[in-house]
């Protein structure tokens, strides 16, 4: 089975993240790039599927050249090879144009199943899986907390407020996963050493069959008009208990209309 897992590099959520003042895009140089957390679950699921059904796991990353660190991490976890879509023309792409660029690349490299995290910690649109499936003309099985493949049949389970949905389709398909699905493995020391010997194919937009006018800032359908820093958090209210702490807390909650 040809498993492609989409992996994104995002700015470390533990550091301060900023937008650039010139073109209002994410300042990717300001923070350390790390693998998007949900992508680790996607990689783990891809590896589990390979272990159960055989085949090969290919990492697909669209991102600047420094995203090689993130690709290396996915390879260290056990993926077999990687495709890195990297081109200055892609800078500033929105969700829609990203899905176009990724779909074109997926058509170029081929797949039986595409696995991705259900959202990234930077933009948090959570749209890519659905958009990719639509563009590729294959079924989408989103927010999976369990994936089963049997021949060409694929079924996922999705947790809901009322229990769970079971969604069935046939391959090829696009699957997005949530963190309940598994526990991502650590890269082993051997895996880390082996990663640098694994093939990473670099594709520019021309090689991936991407039309330059449909990507980047110019090709984006959405535009960031303005942005402002979040206001600093105000100090909290402390109710000192002098025998009437309960009343004080209740009055505070009532004043905020919580009760």
């Amino acid at each position, binding site marked *: 089975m040809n498993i492609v897992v989409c992996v994104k590099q995002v700015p470390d959520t533990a550091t301060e993240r900023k937008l650039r003042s010139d073109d209002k895009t994410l300042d990717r140089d300001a923070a350390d790039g790390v693998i998007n957390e949900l992508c680790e679950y996607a990689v783990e699921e891809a590896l589990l599927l390979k272990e159960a059904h055989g085949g090969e796991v290919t990492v697909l990353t669209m991102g600047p050249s420094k995203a090689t660190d993130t690709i*290396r*991490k996915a390879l*260290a976890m056990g993926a077999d090879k990687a495709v890195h879509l990297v081109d200055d023309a892609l800078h500033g792409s929105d969700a829609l144009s990203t899905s176009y660029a990724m779909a074109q690349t997926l058509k170029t490299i081929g797949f039986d199943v595409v696995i991705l995290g259900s959202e990234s910690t930077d933009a948090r649109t959570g749209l890519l899986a659905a958009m990719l499936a639509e563009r590729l003309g294959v079924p989408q099985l989103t927010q999976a907390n369990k994936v089963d493949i049997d021949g060409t049949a694929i079924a996922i389970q999705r947790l809901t407020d009322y229990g769970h949905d079971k969604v069935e389709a046939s391959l090829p398909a696009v699957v997005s996963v949530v963190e309940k699905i598994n526990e991502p*493995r*650590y*890269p*082993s*020391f*051997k895996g*880390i*050493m082996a*990663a*640098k010997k694994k093939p990473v194919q670099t594709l520019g937009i021309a090689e991936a069959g991407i039309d330059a006018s449909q990507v980047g800032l110019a090709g984006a359908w959405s535009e960031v008009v303005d942005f402002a820093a979040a206001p600093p958090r105000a100090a909290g209210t402390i109710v000192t208990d002098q025998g009437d702490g309960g009343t004080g807390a209740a009055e505070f909650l009532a004043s905020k209309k919580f009760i």
Partner: protein
Amino acid sequence: MFTLTDDQRAIAEAAREFADEHLAPHAVTWDQTKHFPVDVLRKAAELGMGGIYIREDVGGSELSRFEAALIFEALATGCPSIAAYISIHNMTAWMIDVFGDEAQRSRWLPRMCTMEDLGSYCLTEPEAGSDAAALRTRADRDGDDYVLNGVKQFISGAGASQIYIVMARTGEPGPRGISAFVVEGGTDGMSFGPNEVKMGWNAQPTRQVILENVCVPAANLLGGEGDGFRIAMRGLNGGRLNIGACSLGGAQFALDRTVTYLGEREAFGAKLLKSQALQFKLADMVTELEAARTLLWRAAMALDAGAADTVELCAMAKRFATDAGFEVANSALQLHGGYGYLAEYGIEKVVRDLRVHQILEGTNEIMRLIISRGLTGAA
């Protein structure tokens, strides 16, 4: 000199992430409840920590001693006691890897690399610590077997381990009469003393190993008769580096905590971190640690390269790093004020754990003995 490759950075980072997730959050509880988390050790082995510098054909990671130093420092930021046990386990596995024959390697090492089987190093005796060559445990040849009798003192992992490398006397008094045997857990005649009540290192057991007519096949002899002391000392060179690295990691954790704490704690109308007296103290602490790290890395590279002065360098690094680590951790406790003395803050535990690093794997006095011997040429 001393810039890390991408791989080395990634290896240290993986060990650090493991420590952050699986060791640090539980370290205080394990210390208080004297819990030896064997399940977590097996998880560490999935990363390759069961055989860090063991050859790949038996499941090891085949990394260098330099890389091992990076790993032990990272692990010890989560829990020095667990990191140090993993070091002892690796030391015993290494002795089998280097001095064992193919049959011995393939028999014991695969399960040691996964940490399904844990290892213990049994040299010290009640009457022979620093002067280990005076050990009295006997191994007497009996047909195809050896029969072992004696008591081993302070054995880390004892009771939980499956593989015990026991140094025992097969010949003349002194170092040349000693041989190294692999004794498997559960062998008739082997029993254990109670888990010692101790100042630190509570997350791993320390017990006597008592050998009463323990019958071990000759196939369990590592190397030849009389090689035991040399094997035991060779193991300790690397062990000393690892222990030094464990002190570094524990102290680095305490220092990092202190910087955060002083940045939050207010006294006399300002954050304590604004006090230049305390800033200078922090500057000294980080400098001591960096000096220790530099010496440790230098010694690790000497060991990897098989340099002639390896033994002295490992002794210097162990002495310096374990002393510096303890002093820095103790200062970190002081800078936390009364809170440093509370278990909850995690600092006093590190101080207690690091204290024993100045005593075991050769006391720091014995390190000075080794270093001065190298200097004066005395035997």
